[in-house]
C-alpha cells in the first residue's frame, strides 16, 4: 500500500482542534491554536485521520495519495 499524505488548508482552519483530539499522533497544537501536522500518515493512523477529516468543522483536511506522475 502506498503511504498516505495529508495536507491541511490552514487558511480555512480556525483551530477547533477536532483533528488533534481524534489523531493526536498526526496533528499537534503549537501554542493555543497553531496547528502543525505530520504530512506522512502511517498506515495505523489512516483511520484516525479519516475521522479527523470528516470531523473538521471547516472541512480543511485532505487525506489522499500523492499524484502518480508515472515512473517516478
Amino acid at each position, binding site marked *: 500500500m502506498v503511504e498516505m499524505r495529508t495536507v491541511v488548508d490552514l487558511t480555512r482552519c480556525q483551530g*477547533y*482542534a*477536532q483533528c*488533534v*483530539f*481524534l*489523531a*493526536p499522533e498526526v496533528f*499537534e*497544537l*503549537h*501554542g*493555543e491554536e497553531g496547528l502543525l501536522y505530520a504530512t506522512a500518515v502511517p498506515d495505523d493512523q489512516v483511520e*484516525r485521520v*479519516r*475521522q479527523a*477529516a*470528516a*470531523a473538521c*468543522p*471547516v*472541512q480543511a483536511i485532505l487525506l489522499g495519495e500523492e499524484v502518480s506522475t508515472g515512473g517516478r
Partner: protein
Amino acid sequence: MDSATLLARITDYASRPNPYPLYAELREAGPVVPQADGSYLIGTYHHIAALLHDPRMSADPRTRGEMTHKPPFLRLDDPEHHRLRTLAMRPFGPPHSPGRVDGMRGEIDRITEALLEPFEAGHQVDIVDDFAYPLPVTVICRLLGVPHEDEPLFRAWSDAIVAAADVRPDDESAEPDKGGDQARMELGGYLLNLAEQRRGKPGEDMLSAFVNEPDPALRLTPEELAETAVLLLIAGHETTVNLIANGALTFLRQPEQLDRLRREPELLPRAVEELLRYEPPVHMRERIPHADMDIAGTPVPRGVPVILALASGNRDPQRFPDPDRFDPARQDNQHLGFGSGIHACYGGPLARLEAYAALGALLPHLATASLVQDPPPYRQNAMLRGPRHLPVRL
C-alpha cells in the same frame, strides 16, 4: 399562518416528531422573524453562521437583564469564557492533554459491547434506555470521576436543569422556573464535594485534575469548578443520547442507507456528521445582542433574545443541496450540529467517538430489526430534541 407564532409552534410538544416543515416556513418568512414574545427567530444557515461568529452577540443571559449568578462558560462571553474554557480544557484536550479522548477508544468499545450483550434476535429493546443513554452516562462518569451508582441521584437534577434551560416563548404570566437554579446548586455541591474528596489524592479523572491543579493561576475557584463540572456532566450525556438514538431511528427508517453503511463501514465518520446535520441533538441556541444591530436589514435592539434555529440552518437549501435527504456520503458538510465560533462544542470529539462505537456496533443488530412505534415518543425538550424511548424488535 402567522410567522410571529413560529417559536410557539416549534416548541409546542405536538411538533416534536417533525419540526422540519416549521423550519421551512421559518426560512421562508425570514431571515429575521420577530416573534410575539419580543424575541427574534432566525433559521437560515448563512445568517446563523454569521451570528455565531459575531462578537456583538452575547451568550450571557445577564445581557438581557436576567438576574442570575455567574453562569458556566457555555453562557459567558470572552474574555471570561475563553479563560474558563481553556482551564476546563487542560485535563481534557489539546494543547495540554491531546491524547486524553483518543485514549478512551478502548474503554468506549468495551462499554458498548457490554451494553449490547443482551441484544438478542427476537427480543424487544428500548434503544434509549438500554443503550443510547447508559453509554454516554458511563463514559462521562468515568471521565469526570463520578460514581456511576449515583446516576439516579444526578439524573433528577440533570432533568430539572435541562428542562429549565429549554427554549420556550416568554410568557409574562408564567412563574419563573426556579427548579433549575435549585438543581444546579445541588448538583454543583455534590460534584464539588466529590472533587474535595480527591484533594491530595489525585486520580486519572477530571475532577481530580481540577482540584489538584498546582498552579494558582490555572486553578478554578470552587464556584467555577462547580459550574464547570455541572456543565460537563450534563452536556456530556444529555446530547449524545439523542445522537445515538436519532442515528438508530434514521437507519431503521432508511434501510437502504443502513445496507450501504454495512457494506462501506469507512463511511461511518461521515455518516455521523450527516446525522449531526440531518437530525441534530441540539436544535436551538439563544444569543443576545450587546448593541443595537441591523441583522439582514431588520433592526434588532440590544438585550432581546435572538433564537438561532441550528436545526433549520442544517436544512437550508441555500447551503445544502437536497437538504431533506440523509446522505451518509455527503461532501461539504459544514453543519451546525455542534454550533460554531467560540462556543463550538467542547466535547465534540468525545461525542463522535461514542457515536462511531455505538452506531458501528449497532449496525448489525439493526439490519434485522424493526421499529415498534414510528414516530417514537419524544422528550419534552425542544432545544435538546430526541426520542424519550425507541422501542425496537430485534
